[in-house]
């Protein structure tokens, strides 16, 4: 039976564990920072020399750590793209905007173990020659912001942060910056604009890759809270040991947020790919199954922007066979290992690690209407296909879910969504389109039937029953 493997959340929920620095240090806190700062330079077999900072960056690359914020991009590679020759300062920003619907893992770290994030950040900043860094926390977490500020001042008082950190001559300042309720601030270039004191209008890439032209047009690293915490453990364990957790190309642990129609919703830290979707939903160690008498209808596997998966769906996954050759294995939705690559092969993504479960009492039209209202509200409005399209989707779905549907609505919704994706400045366009494309295609009968029923009711001159 699979179990949690708590690395980042090891202490968070233990009785008596508190967010102050004394408690953190009693549990080995800031030892990873000391270890990182004491890293010796090394000479590679080919004679190339690595500075201590390069050694740590190399470890992060070798650990296989992939970003936990959404895109699952290699953290070490991202760091390697940083323009170190521009002569401009390098900034690091921790993305603590946590606003992808379904996701509530960074909240646990920030509220229960803020020093772990601070330590992960200090190490990451040192390894990347960063002297000024920010934590961008969503506005609706005022207590989290206070806890982080408290943690930063405790770290300063102990010499882990500020001038001449632990006598090494390295200076670093970290500040907390609060957002103000806009989802698009989670998108890294929107976040940067917002941190510059502007509307969070995402920037177009190219040329505005944060690693080259980020905050104040300087090279900038944006990493998620959980990613930065993982760095602390990579330093403690070493890249090799860390990479033994999880599965090949999907290393380490990750915190899964599970919500919706399960008996035990909550957050579960697993070795990546070592639990299947079925286990996460049904195992007593995780979701504990559905409510009595219910059947699974659908799951949203990686935050609300990921494509929905339908109960009973089968996927063809590439797997290494007994003879070492790659073979295609037919895999049921419930048997999908929860990792980056399997979900991608299933045509969706593990995104922010958030699973939303829906049972057979749920109406897919209403569920999609709910999500589309979110995207209509949150579009920043810069690109016409996104601004208008997200609104049309929401209006179409509102009508369809409130008795004003037409049988051609399913096609109409698909048409709009297809005209958003790929035509926008940022990936929000896909985030708004993908739920619609997947819900309507996979549950087409539900959408068509709903529209037909409304048409017939109108023809008979009655107001449809679900009109309210």
């Amino acid at each position: 039976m699979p179990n949690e493997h708590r690395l980042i959340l090891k202490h968070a929920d233990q009785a008596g564990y508190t967010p102050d620095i004394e408690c953190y240090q009693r549990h080995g806190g800031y030892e990873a920072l000391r270890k990182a700062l004491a890293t010796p330079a090394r000479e590679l077999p080919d004679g190339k020399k690595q500075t201590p900072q390069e050694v740590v960056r190399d470890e992060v690359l070798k650990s296989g750590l992939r970003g936990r914020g959404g895109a699952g991009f290699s953290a070490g590679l991202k760091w390697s793209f940083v323009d170190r020759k521009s002569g401009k300062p390098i900034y690091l920003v921790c993305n603590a905007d946590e606003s992808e619907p379904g996701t509530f893992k960074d909240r646990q770290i920030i509220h229960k173990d803020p020093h772990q994030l601070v330590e992960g950040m200090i190490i990451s900043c040192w390894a990347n020659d960063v002297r000024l860094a920010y934590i961008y926390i969503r506005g609706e977490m005022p207590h989290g912001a206070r806890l982080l500020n408290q943690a930063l001042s405790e770290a300063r008082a102990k010499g882990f942060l500020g001038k001449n950190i632990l006598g090494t001559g390295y200076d670093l300042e970290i500040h907390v910056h609060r957002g103000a309720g806009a989802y698009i601030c989670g998108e890294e270039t929107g976040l940067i604009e917002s941190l510059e004191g502007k509307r969070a209008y995402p920037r177009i890439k190219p040329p505005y890759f944060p690693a080259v032209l980020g905050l104040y047009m300087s090279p900038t690293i944006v990493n998620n809270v959980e990613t930065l915490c993982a760095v602390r453990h990579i330093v403690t364990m070493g890249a090799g040991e860390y990479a033994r957790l999880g599965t090949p190309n999907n290393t380490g642990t990750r915190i899964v947020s599970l919500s919706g129609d399960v008996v035990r919703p909550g957050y579960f830290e697993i070795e990546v790919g070592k639990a299947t979707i079925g286990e996460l939903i049904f195992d007593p160690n995780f979701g504990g199954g559905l409510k009595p008498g219910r059947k699974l209808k659908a799951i949203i596997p990686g935050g609300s922007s990921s494509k929905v998966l339908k109960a009973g769906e089968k996927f063809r996954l590439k797997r290494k066979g007994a003879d070492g050759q790659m073979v295609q294995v037919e895999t049921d939705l419930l048997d999908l290992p929860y990792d980056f690559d399997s979900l991608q092969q299933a045509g969706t993504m593990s995104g922010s690690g958030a699973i939303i479960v829906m049972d057979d009492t749920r109406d897919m039209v209403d569920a999609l209407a709910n999500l589309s209202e979110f995207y209509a509200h949150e579009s920043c409005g810069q690109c016409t296909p996104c601004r208008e399209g997200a609104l049309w989707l929401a209006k179409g779905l509102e009508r369809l879910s409130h008795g004003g549907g037409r049988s051609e609505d399913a096609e109409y919704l698909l048409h709009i969504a297809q005209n958003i994706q790929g035509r926008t400045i940022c990936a929000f366009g896909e985030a708004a389109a993908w739920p619609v494309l997947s819900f309507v295609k996979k549950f087409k009968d539900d959408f068509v039937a709903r529209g037909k029923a409304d048409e017939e009711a109108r023809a008979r001159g009655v107001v449809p029953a679900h009109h309210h």
Partner: protein
Amino acid sequence: MSFKVPPQLEAQLDELATHYPQKRSASLMFLHALQEHFGHVSREAVEWTAGKLGLQPINVHELVTFYPMFRREPLGRTHVKVCRTLSCALAGSASLRRHFIEKLGLNPSLHGPQTTPDGAFTVEFVECLASCGTAPVVMVNDDLVEKCTTSDCDRVVASGRGKGGTR
């Protein structure tokens, strides 16, 4: 209320502005602090912030209209934000909102934030509050009410009615 930033708050804000190589970056933090103090962001607060940060008022005004947390009108003393996004909706957030609205004599068919005439409460639907595992959730001022029930709503209303004065 006349607009006067107390010296202590101004000193705090001056310190905040030093956190950034470019002062403009401090705009959101200024607006949060001013909203916390005055209950909303007035035209004067926008102009004052612009003056302090060396900006045109429009640079600040466009933030107030973009970021949902900033309010141009005074808010109720108890500010209730009911999460409406999917996980909370599956757990019954629509009926929670209706419960608040009816209990406070507000209009259930209106969208957007609504404030009671006595200025005691503002109720609104907001998007995912990053606590979907304890849905449905409601934020009451700075505090999160997890697995919120109708009796939790009643408690919030009762204690909000007990709070007098203006913000």
